């Protein structure tokens, strides 16, 4: 196998979501100060307590220092050069679209290009979708089915208006604004996102999904997702994202909070395909996201599955706080980096309750001149009797210009805990390539088959539609990766 930089992987791969949509937008000026926050808050017609929360977060953020410990490098972000709010203009001021049919036809076209079925008539995928375009949620589908089951699924701004008690109770309970730099920034300027509440004993009848797209120039996207699964509930949640191709970098600093009460189960899957920047590493999204789930109740379960194939820089650690006794957390991840992409991703499993269990399966593939790091923490608190963790982190290198790193942090404060961590790094086995080629397969197919096999443990955790998408995405990204 010859991987000289001259026939570098992914030479002909192109981002197919790189178009922009010509839509009139309603924007706030560039920059960040208390007035901007007040403006965002007033645009969203928020109650006083929400504004207070934002300002508190903003004041705290100003005292914080930008973190630099990740294995990524990028020029310093100018937080004053970002537009913190941009929304597609509504036909009449203050008049929210009543159904999907009232949406701007340009917008619907955009999502058709992306393959997101917004129109309720086309029940292609049978998934309820909440679509976030730049800073606001533009529509939620399948509302009837959800209403029947008692599931609340709407944009977070709507939830602030209609379900303030739930929002007050859980908002910031898993990721407080003081948690980290980007979480504080998000708490101050978040514009929209999805809210979901699964009532007691309800198994959500259809899968829920949020779709994010950054469209406008210079904007950052700061969405906030809050998902609460009450006792005995179950939900399967999917998240997808794209952005247009632009030469400058755009910041995406989202916060996702999950709360699972007694016997509840949340499955959260992400296929992240933000624009990666071009071959020279110009442009692309900085994906600095805080995602955390709290398995607060007994026997609760939270699982994160992610396929990270986009963004110029990915810096995120979907985590689980295993607070309830017998609660379980899982993290399944595939991170593919190419050209000059950088990824520093992994998870945190904090064991607090008795008999808590966590599983980490992480697969990193680096090609081109990219760098791909796994960073994960497993912490067993003194109260976590009989905690169990299994971690496996495998990295694959394609080409001699890329790098793979593994940084696990294992902290054990209880002697009844059992922990195992394993990691390997290697390239694709020549024997396997030879075997497949001797069966008449071309190199491209061979590599894609082996990479898919390498990632299979993670892909099988994804819901069917996503699993197909993920396999295709990886195949597409690996096209011409070997010469």
């Amino acid at each position, binding site marked *: 196998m010859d991987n000289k930089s001259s026939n570098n992987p992914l030479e002909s791969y192109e981002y197919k979501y790189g178009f922009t949509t010509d839509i009139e937008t309603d924007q706030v000026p560039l920059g960040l100060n208390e007035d901007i926050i007040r403006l965002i808050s007033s645009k969203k017609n928020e109650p006083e307590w929400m504004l207070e929360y934002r300002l508190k977060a903003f004041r705290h953020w100003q005292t914080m220092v930008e973190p630099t410990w990740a294995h990524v490098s990028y020029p310093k972000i100018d937080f004053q050069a970002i537009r913190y709010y941009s929304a597609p203009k509504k036909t009449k001021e203050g008049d929210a679209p009543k159904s999907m049919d009232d949406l701007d036809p340009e917008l619907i076209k955009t999502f058709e290009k992306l393959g997101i079925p917004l129109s309720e008539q086309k029940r292609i995928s049978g998934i309820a979708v909440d679509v976030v375009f730049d800073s606001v949620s533009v529509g939620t589908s399948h509302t009837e089915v959800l209403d029947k089951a008692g599931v609340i699924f709407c944009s977070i701004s709507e939830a602030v208006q209609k379900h303030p008690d739930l929002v007050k109770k859980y908002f910031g309970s898993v990721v407080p604004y003081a948690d980290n730099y980007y979480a504080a920034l998000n708490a101050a300027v978040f514009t929209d996102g999805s809210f979901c509440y699964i009532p007691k004993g309800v198994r959500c009848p259809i899968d829920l999904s949020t779709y994010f797209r950054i469209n406008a120039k210079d904007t950052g996207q700061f969405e906030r997702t809050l998902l609460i699964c009450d006792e005995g509930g179950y939900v399967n949640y999917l998240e997808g994202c794209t952005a247009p191709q632009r030469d400058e970098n755009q910041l995406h600093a989202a916060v996702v909070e999950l709360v699972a009460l007694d016997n509840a189960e949340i499955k959260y899957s992400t296929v992240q395909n933000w624009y990666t920047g071009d071959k020279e590493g110009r442009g692309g999204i900085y994906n600095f996201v805080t995602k955390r789930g709290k398995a607060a109740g007994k026997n609760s379960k939270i699982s994160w599955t992610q396929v990270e194939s986009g963004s110029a820089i990915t810096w995120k650690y979907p985590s689980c706080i295993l607070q309830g006794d017998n609660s379980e957390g899982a993290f399944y991840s595939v991170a593919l980096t190419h050209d000059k992409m950088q990824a520093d991703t992994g998870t945190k499993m904090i064991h607090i309750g008795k008999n808590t269990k966590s599983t980490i399966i992480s697969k990193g593939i680096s090609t081109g001149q990219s760098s791909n790091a796994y960073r994960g923490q497993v912490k067993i608190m*003194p109260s976590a009797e009989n905690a169990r963790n299994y971690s496996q982190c495998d990295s694959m290198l394609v080409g*001699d210009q890329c790098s793979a790193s593994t940084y696990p942090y294992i902290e*054990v404060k*209880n002697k009844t*805990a*059992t922990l*195992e961590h394993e990691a390997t*790094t290697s*390239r694709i086995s020549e024997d396997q390539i030879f075997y497949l080629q001797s069966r008449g397969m071309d190199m491209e197919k061979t590599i894609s088959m082996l990479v898919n096999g390498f990632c299979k443990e993670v892909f099988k955790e994804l819901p069917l539609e996503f699993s197909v998408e993920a396999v295709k995405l990886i195949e597409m990204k690996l096209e011409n990766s070997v010469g």
Partner: protein
Amino acid sequence: MNIFSDYDRFVKAFPAKGALAAFRQSGQDYALQKGLPTRKDEDWHYTSVKAVSDLQFTSDLGSSAPLNSDLVTEIKKHLNPQFTNVVFVNGILEKSLTDDLPFGFALKEDFAFPTKFDDAFDAVNGAYAYNPLSISLAKETAVEKPVNFLFFTAKSPSSPRMLHPRLQIDIGARSSVRILESYYGDQDSRYLVNSVVELNVADSAKVTYARIQADTESAFNIGRTRINVEKNATLETMAFSVGAQLSRHTLEVALKGPGSSSGIFGVYATRGSQHSDNTTLIDHQVGECSTEQLYKGILDNESRAVFSGKVLIQKGAQKANSSQLNNNLLLSQKAEADSKPMLDIYADDVKAAHGSTVGQLNKEELFYLLSRSIPKHKAISMLSYGFLSEVIYKISDEKIQHWLSLHLDQAFARLQVAEATQKS
């Protein structure tokens, strides 16, 4: 007041000229500018040196009067007649207890002072450098007896002592030698050892290096060992740590020539409120080197152990083969193990794996011994001993194996396994 503040007094009491004076000053400047590491430094995330920075140490070396007979008896306990012993008492070479260096060794005229420091401890060692020892072993020489550099710290009448040993050894091509570096202290005395040892292993040489840290349990031991390994050399290292209230050993192995093979081993047993930290960096600068790493430890009472190991495979270091494993056994409910095995890989045709486990004794093994009517505390002790001795037997030299086993016996005699058993 801290470990930097005795510098002026030290320079007056032990004046130096030329290169050493300049080196001292550069160390002091660096240390003052940088300050002691805190837990905010990524490399010191799990180890706080606050206990060290809060104390006032004296830089006094040696002792004004000749050694009294009690002290000599005490030191002699730690001498092994099968080794060539080089004894330092309170930082000064004690000629009456030191054997002649074997044939092939030579004292080097000039000490090759480094031009940069890794952290404040490295720099402080430079600031308080007193007569640093630099020796070389000629090429094609097989040294039969292991050479043991023994550092003994006696009680101090005033504030606790701090010692900053610095040792540099060049091993000639195709030579073979076994080197030990050992630390002991007088009864319950409190002191700080902050050592820097550099080994340069030339082509095809074979070196075994063991660092035995058996300080008193009120002492602090911060040590750094840098080893440069050239083409086709064979290296075995052992970081054996059973003493000190707070200990930290940083091992940096730089693989500079292809074809070398290294075994990097470590054993730690902690009790009480001891804190033991092993930090390693295995730097594959060129390809075709193989390294095996195994660190194992048992933790009793409220003690804490840290393993933070990094394997770096640099761009172009193809065909590197590296493994790293850290196993911890928690014997007590309040003990804590932190493990951070890291891989940083910049070449594609390599094999690298690491693993880490934390757990307790296998219940079936314990049951087997109990069913043979072995008391529980003894069974626990036997199993933990077996767990650690696996690493000791990785060292190929039998004399060193035996010597390490003796130290492990003593450490086990101190572990209050029985007590812990009853509590749990």
